């Protein structure tokens, strides 16, 4: 018998925690601003109570730091965390594999390839308020997606194994290409490497808006299918006998996840572990039912990423540790703990 924490507690507690995390993260950072002042700045921008907050003594540059550097960064981290966790949960269900992770589709390598091309060639430019690297990363991701889909969805079944293999092989190919490029342009090697490690340091509101669009779109497309996804995980034949077009559902879910992952990786690099372990954390708390798993994973993914990013930019301030290192430091031991627990119970998933 698995103990389940009351669902209501989760539905209220986790979003609440997210709000707390967002506000507190936006209040800390490398700049020397009193936490109370940060809170004042944030509150002053809220619709109803904003007018009552006294912000007269706060330096204008502090406003810029909090509202145009920290806040978009926290928001972007949350959105990317949500996106990665959501895609991770969906892919784990659709591939019937608890080890599935958003980066397994090869899209992230495509984004990295696009970014490394942009960096090596020295592409600058500001497109819609985003750097050329982001744009190129996205294009790289899209091209990779279409290649992987074409290979994976060939033939009758669109089988899980085919998708995984397509993703892995394309990923390897692209990684090799990136390595060659890094070697040919040694002076840009560090930049490419750092981009790939993942960072939210260049978060801007246009990027936030891009992610909002993609995440909302994905949620609208995925959440209604939550129950069908549950059924899909019992097997293609089993699902079809219950009226679900397994192949089409799987395709649709992978397409949507791919686009979401493409957006996430383009703005922030390759950040691992969030997509892998956040769904597992939620499963431990509330079971595999996608109706709870998917939305809660979004919230939890946001919390996880914001916390990791806040640590990344405050532990060694003003230096920044790549956020992917923090997610790995927290994520890997947690994952080992999950495995150990699962083996002790003799239970899978």
């Amino acid at each position, binding site marked *: 018998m698995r103990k389940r924490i009351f669902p209501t507690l989760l539905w209220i507690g986790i979003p609440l925690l997210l709000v707390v995390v967002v506000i507190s993260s936006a209040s800390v950072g*490398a*700049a*020397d601003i009193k936490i109370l002042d940060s809170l004042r700045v944030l509150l002053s921008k809220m619709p109803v109570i904003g007018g009552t907050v006294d912000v007269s003594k706060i330096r204008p*540059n502090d406003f*810029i730091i909090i509202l145009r*550097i920290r806040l978009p960064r926290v928001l972007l981290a949350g959105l990317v965390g949500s996106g990665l966790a959501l895609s991770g949960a969906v892919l784990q269900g659709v591939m019937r594999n608890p080890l599935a992770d958003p980066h397994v589709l090869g899209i992230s390598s495509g984004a990295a390839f696009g970014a490394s091309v942009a960096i090596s060639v020295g592409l600058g430019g500001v497109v819609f308020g985003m750097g050329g690297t982001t744009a190129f990363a996205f294009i790289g991701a899209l091209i990779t997606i279409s290649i992987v889909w074409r290979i994976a969805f060939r033939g009758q079944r669109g089988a899980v194994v085919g998708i995984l293999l397509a993703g892995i092989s394309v990923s390897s190919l692209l990684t090799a290409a990136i390595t060659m490029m890094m070697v040919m342009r040694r002076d840009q090697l560090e930049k490419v490497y750092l*981009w790939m490690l993942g960072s939210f340091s260049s978060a801007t509101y246009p990027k936030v808006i891009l992610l909002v669009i993609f995440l909302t779109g994905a949620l609208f497309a995925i959440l209604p299918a939550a129950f069908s996804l549950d059924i899909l995980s019992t097997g293609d034949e089993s699902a079809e006998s219950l009226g679900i077009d397994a192949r089409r559902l799987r395709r649709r879910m992978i397409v949507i996840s791919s686009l979401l992952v493409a957006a996430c990786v383009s703005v922030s690099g390759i950040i691992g572990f969030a997509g892998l372990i956040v769904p597992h954390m939620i499963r431990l708390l509330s079971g595999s039912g996608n109706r709870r798993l998917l939305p809660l994973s979004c919230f939890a993914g946001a919390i996880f990423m914001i916390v990791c990013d806040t640590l990344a930019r405050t532990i060694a301030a003003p*230096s*920044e540790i790549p956020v992917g290192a923090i997610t790995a430091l927290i994520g890997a031991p947690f994952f080992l703990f999950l495995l150990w627990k699962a083996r002790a119970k003799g239970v899978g998933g």
Partner: protein
Amino acid sequence: MAVVFSLCLFSCTPATEPPGETSPSIESVLSAISEFDTVRTEPEETETSETAGSLYPMAIDDSYGNRAIIEKEPMRIVSLAPNITELLFDLGAGEKLVGRTDYCNYPESALSIASVGSIDMPSVETIVTLDPDLIIASSIFTEASYEALTELGYTVVVFHEEYDMDGVKDVIASVGAIMDCGTEAQSLIEAMDQRIQSAIEKIDSENRPSVYYAVSFGDYGDYTAGGDTYVNALIEMAGGVNIASDITGWSYSVEKLVEKDPDIILVNEYMLADFMALEPYKNLSAVKNGQVFGINPDLIERQGFRNAAGIELLVSLFYPAE
């Protein structure tokens, strides 16, 4: 492996004075060095053996304390550092250069010299075909390459200067000594001093501008010159106050940049437009006041004679003539 090890051990013994006279030209170089010398243990020393009237064979200890013996005047040199390449040309020894790295792009005539690849992993094969009698390297050069080349019997000297102007002048002097261009080295150093001196006269020490040097920004992360870097030394020398002098290394935070809001910002000239257009940089006072300047980073990042021009440029930006 054991052979290499013992070779290293052998060559890494601290320098000692050998018996014998020192020739007059070296003495002048030594005294030139000692002028700028402060109370530091100077890892570089040049000495000769007995034969009067001739510099060579010369024993020289480089920045790592490795002793190299230069048999005769070098005629075929491979330079594994952009700053060394520039220096050789400045000393008038440019025709002796037979090999350079991909990154040696100044002066223009350097481009016509054969390239041996990158700084940290130059192509040993290409070096061999060029048949140099001396290889000079600087920072970034790896121990692996050093061993590979010395094992093949090449003479390799590595000059890894200190992160300030004096170190640069030491390198000029040392290279000059090796190339028997002592007088040229001396005049270079004097010229540098002169230009720097006249430049820093314009400094108003009461009104130093705060400065930020953007190595990179935006998607690539925020990097600047920390307090322990050479660029920092130049900025300070040119009468600026580097806002990042309290950090070591290069990694910075855009928050701190906005918090400190410097008077002047220096950016790579090719990235100037991007900087001005990108969030949140465009909110900085320096951007709004037109105090963001695009410069050629080689003038202040690459140690060498051109730093004099670099200082002149910085001073002209920090203290514009009315």
